[in-house]
């Protein structure tokens, strides 16, 4: 280890001293060891990030196709209709017109890909892998090889999911929830292969993805517990680390019951068992030849036991990212750090006891419903605490509106809309009407799309300089931001209206054939609203082009910046950009909390966690403590 003295800033140069002292693995690794099967947490983070972004755009493309069918049902898909027909066969797209089975495949795979191959890998695995060890001052994750295996399992899971589009009969059609007994019966029969069919591959892909998330979650928690730098006490952890910590616990404990359910559904499909097949099931007019005695409700319980914590898996990392960026760009400490931490922990605990609010319509019984309705009401409290703390953090700050901050600020109202519109769904009487309508779609997309995805974009713009030593272009960032924000709202706001008109989320014809969808709101019927929504979706697709170009262009050509371009306080900014293998030249020591902005008595308006205490700091903290600020 070289004896470098300065901690706060380093020139973005080579670090030859490191190579000399370590006889082992510091010689140049071949390309495939360095970038393909690397055990370095930063490379794995970037692998997760880029793979995840590709899947995110792919999943979004599936939706852009569906939006055509919804706005113009039964019409030929322009430009690519024939190409799709050739790729997926006449069973999916005939004469350029999408068939119902293909539409169902698109819907099921859109949900699956966006959640499990897009958001979770980016928000949790990519940012977690890249940022968490840097923020806690660790040289790497605790188990680098397991970390690599985690990415590989994810990658093969993704490949299996993609492969399923090209097997006879196409990808899974049972919705991202794969409700039984429908999902057990789907993709079976003479036109399907007993193994290489959409639903079976969906299950196999899931086992790989669950394995991946298990390995990742164990690694994250162990890293945060074991590898915190000297002085990095629990209450000095950046909120992002806390968010990832809670998220990792959710993945660790909520995914395995789904794995057991996936194994059981595989048994149902391949070994002919009846875990989810009730007695006396009649299909196409003939009694089904299975032993029966199973329970479709069992699948729903096991699925939503994952499914609800999964919602917080999607949102918590986003909240963590937003917290970092808000504190950095308001140039003052995050308001209510402790409340935020405890709110995140409570959120984590409660998220395990609310799952059945997805199942009001199953007739579980009023006692069960009353219990879950109560817990669901309670869980809104920590969510509101977190959001309020972010809003209050903005108060009185001299806010720098750079691109990360624009996305982070937009996250707040968008997540607010998503969260508040969830409250009617939490009451089972209101949900009886709204269940499975576009209202539900609008509600959770507001949380995940302009919520988490905006947080993800904010994080990419924010940590890009750390990963590359260059920053992304501000102007094109804004060209990316504003159309995305506007389109998001044109897409999802009208869906609340459609939902309240009673339009069902899984209709293949966009509600064209349904009378009540004819009712006009602001001059357009429920069905006609599909057209502006679809156009906005396609425009939003175009609005991602500046981002894609900016991203790749900036890797090589972006403006060069120093190690701490945002003048931030957390430890990742003390490492060189990009950080070398092993991250820090000198293992950092932590002296203070994560958000020491505008500390009185200091010249700079940011004081890094690794800067030793001075006499003036002590006075400033004492004054603050006397005034009741902590």
């Amino acid at each position, binding site marked *: 280890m070289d004896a470098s003295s300065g901690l706060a800033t380093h020139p973005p140069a080579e670090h030859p001293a490191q190579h000399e002292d370590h006889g082992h693995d510091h010689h140049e690794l071949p390309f495939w060891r360095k970038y393909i099967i690397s055990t370095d947490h930063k490379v794995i983070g970037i692998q997760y990030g880029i793979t995840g972004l590709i899947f995110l755009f792919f999943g979004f493309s599936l939706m852009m196709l569906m939006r055509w069918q919804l706005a113009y049902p039964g019409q030929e898909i322009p430009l690519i209709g024939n190409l799709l027909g050739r790729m997926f066969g006449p069973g999916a797209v005939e004469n350029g017109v999408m068939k119902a089975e293909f539409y169902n495949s698109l819907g099921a795979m859109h949900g699956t890909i966006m959640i499990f191959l897009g958001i979770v890998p980016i928000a949790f695995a990519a940012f977690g892998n890249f940022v968490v060890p840097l923020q806690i001052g660790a040289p790497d994750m605790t188990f680098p090889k397991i970390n690599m295996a985690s990415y590989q399992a994810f990658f093969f899971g993704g490949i299996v999911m993609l492969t399923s589009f090209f097997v006879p009969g196409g990808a899974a059609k049972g919705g991202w929830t794969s409700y039984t007994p429908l999902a057990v019966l789907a993709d079976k029969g003479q036109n399907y292969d007993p193994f290489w069919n959409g639903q079976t591959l969906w299950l196999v892909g899931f086992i790989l993805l669950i394995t991946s998330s298990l390995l990742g979650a164990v690694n994250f928690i162990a890293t945060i517990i074991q590898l915190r730098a000297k002085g990095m006490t629990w209450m000095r952890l950046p909120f992002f680390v806390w968010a990832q910590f809670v998220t990792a616990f959710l993945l660790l404990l909520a995914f395995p019951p789904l794995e057991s359910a996936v194994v059981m559904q595989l048994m149902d499909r391949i070994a002919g068992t009846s*875990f989810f097949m009730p007695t006396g099931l009649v299909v196409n007019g003939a009694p089904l030849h299975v032993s029966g005695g199973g329970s479709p409700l069992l699948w729903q319980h096991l699925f939503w036991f994952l499914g609800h914590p999964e919602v917080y898996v999607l949102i918590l990392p986003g909240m963590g990212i937003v917290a970092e960026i808000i504190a950095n760009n308001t140039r003052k400490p995050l308001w209510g750090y402790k409340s935020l931490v405890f709110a995140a922990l409570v959120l984590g605990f409660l998220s395990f006891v609310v799952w059945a609010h997805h199942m009001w319509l199953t007739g579980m019984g009023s006692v069960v419903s009353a219990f879950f309705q109560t817990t669901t009401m309670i869980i809104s409290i920590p969510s509101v605490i977190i959001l309020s703390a972010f809003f209050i953090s903005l108060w009185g700050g001299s806010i720098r509106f750079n691109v990360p901050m624009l996305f982070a600020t937009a996250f707040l109202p968008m997540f607010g809309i998503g969260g508040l519109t969830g409250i009617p769904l939490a009451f089972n009487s209101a949900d009886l009407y709204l269940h499975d309508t576009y209202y539900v779609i609008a509600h959770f997309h507001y949380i995940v799309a302009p919520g988490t995805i905006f947080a993800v974009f904010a994080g990419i713009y924010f940590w890009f300089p750390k990963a590359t030593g260059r920053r992304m272009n501000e102007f094109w960032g804004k060209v990316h931001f504003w159309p995305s924000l506007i389109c998001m709202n044109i897409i999802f706001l009208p869906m609340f209206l459609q939902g309240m008109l009673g339009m069902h989320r899984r209709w293949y014809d966009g509600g064209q054939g349904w009378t009540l969808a004819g009712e006009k709101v602001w001059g357009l019927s429920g069905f006609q609203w599909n057209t502006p929504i679809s156009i906005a979706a396609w425009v939003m697709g175009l609005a991602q082009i500046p981002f894609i170009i900016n991203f790749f262009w900036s890797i090589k050509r972006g403006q060069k910046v120093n190690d701490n371009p945002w003048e931030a306080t957390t430890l990742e900014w003390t490492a060189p950009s990009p950080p070398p293998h092993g991250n820090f030249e000198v293992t950092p020591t932590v002296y203070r909390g994560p958000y020491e902005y505008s500390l009185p008595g200091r010249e700079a308006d940011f004081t890094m966690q690794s800067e030793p205490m001075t006499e003036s700091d002590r006075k400033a903290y004492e004054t603050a403590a006397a005034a009741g600020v902590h």
Partner: protein
Amino acid sequence: MEIPYTVTARPDTGLWNAKVGIWLFLASEVMLFGGLFSAYVFLRLDADPGVWPHGLLNVPVGTMNTAILIASSVTVVMAWASLKMRKFRAYWWYMLVTILCGVIFLAVKLVYEWPQKFEHFGAFIKKDKLEKYEQYLGNHHLAEKGLPPRTEISGHLHNHDALHDENAKEYEIALDPVNADPTNPNMDRPHFLYVPPTEKMATIEKEDVEYANMFLPKHSAYFASYFTITGLHGAHVLGGVIVFTYLWLPVGTKLYKRNPEHLANRVEVAGLFWHFVDLVWIFVFPLFYLL
């Protein structure tokens, strides 16, 4: 840069990394088996009276397997303790015994217990035809005693083709003792020891059968959960055996010579996993064999 705390404990947590990792992994394993066991509870509570079978498994054999697993949990602790005392020979022998216990457990499952099920046959009789087969079911006798009715006739299937042949109209079965002599009070409760099918033959018309199959996973909710849970548990036993064998082979010796504490830690972690596998069996055994 080296990752700290791979072998020695971090002072403030008192743990080295892999120990944190294995406990977290075991927590997720609890949830995995928890999901399966809750499915078992769900299915069993949902089952119609008399449908959930009893006494199909061989209790003495299961007890023996339980004892073998518990013994192996003891020997793996001895193996670890030997390493801590730097007695490598003793470690080697204890580890060998642990591995052999795991292999015997798996062999009993795969060679004896599972195949015996595959050769057994059971037919669930339609509700309105139960009376016709009263001589095999003895439901009047059971009703008098206030016991749940029988709906299944089981035994050894003589015309195996009948399962798939559309033209076959009936199943010919060498009856299990319970169906051969259904009113015998000895048959009111499940057997403790496995009793093979009798010589007594019965013919069951396919028309009268609700659902019939060999004792495969698809035979019933009971066998579905039995094979899934014991199968997954068996996979865990196999995983443990593989890891132990790896640590027992010369690879382990090499590591011992380089850093004995590191090998001891690895054995401890693998041992924790092994105890968990043992613990799962402690749940499996009563749920399927005894209750």
